[in-house]
């Protein structure tokens, strides 16, 4: 039985970064740079999402000569639904934070 946990800001950031690129595949290192996160943070998230079936993985089919094929990631259908849930939850959270006068810090994941 899978436990349902509240996703961390880093997980939300990775999922939404993948969601912003729905048609194409992303590289792990690109995600690290895009989000300003370390590989030790991004890859465990990708591993978990892949194990849950929320991320699809594939190997680059035509790598340039001189380097091995890279591993690619994109959201699956289930992952896309998960991303929509996260967006909806964030949208519901924003007005509440505004009403309470709380600051919305521009840190990772808070904007989502």
């Amino acid at each position: 039985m899978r436990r349902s946990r509240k996703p961390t800001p880093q997980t939300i950031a990775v999922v939404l970064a993948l969601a912003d690129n729905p048609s194409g595949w992303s590289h792990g290192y690109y995600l690290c740079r895009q989000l300003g996160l370390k590989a030790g943070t991004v890859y465990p998230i990708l591993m978990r999402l892949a194990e849950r079936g929320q991320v699809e993985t594939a190997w680059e089919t035509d790598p340039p000569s001189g380097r091995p094929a890279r591993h690619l990631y994109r959201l699956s259908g289930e992952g896309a639904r998960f991303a929509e849930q996260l967006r909806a939850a964030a949208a519901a959270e924003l007005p509440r934070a505004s009403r309470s006068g709380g600051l919305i810090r521009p840190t990772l994941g808070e904007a989502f």
Partner: protein
Amino acid sequence: MITRRAGWIVGALAVALALSMIAPGAFLALAVPAAVVGSILIRRRPRGHEDGDAADRLLAAAATLTGERASSDGEQVDWGAALRAELATITVPRERRRFAVGAAVALLGRPHSRRSLVVAAGVAVAFGAGLLGVSRAGLGDDGLGSVTMLLPPVLLFASAYLCARSTRSLRFGLETGLVAALATLVAVAVVYGVEAAHWYHLAPDVSVLDGDHVDFDSTRAAVLDAAHPIILLVHLVFWSPWPVLGAWAGCRHREPPPADA
């Protein structure tokens, strides 16, 4: 470079010689698993990484230790190969080091631990219950010491071997075997404590460790004699090679890694 390497080898041999003269048993118990792990890392280093930089070697070592391979149905991702391929695209040395450290942490921290804990707890509980049964049946002439020294290595070897073989993961075997060793040590400490108190009331001058006659002046003294930290440490040192050897043996049944992974 050769001179430097030779210096390391000579230094290591000198330390090994000194240690073997001071404490040969402890040296053997520690040197055997270290040699096994070292040989695994050297013999199973992925092809194409022989001349890599420190980042490359770190990640290759982590990938080798974690040891999962893609399954034939594609369900299981070879994360070690994925991370090494990604590292190959990074050219800035500082970035390579940072990425390799993070990637190694990601590989080594993969969540096998819950299964490891379950297996380890099972081994420890089974051995603890068996030890309690043996003690209640009678200490005999040798006490419980021979049981706690000789039987756990077999159990630890078997559990590490089966876990490594069934999952094709050296790390899972190592993790399970070593956690099982610690859990079994706790079980031994508990049973020793309980049984030392139990036997003190029945036969106050008998040590549960070896069945010898010892004059204890209190229950506390009897318990401390059996569950002494030094005694437990000796157990741990004696046991420690076996889960490493079990995991190594379990992994030898795996298929060789793909040439271009």
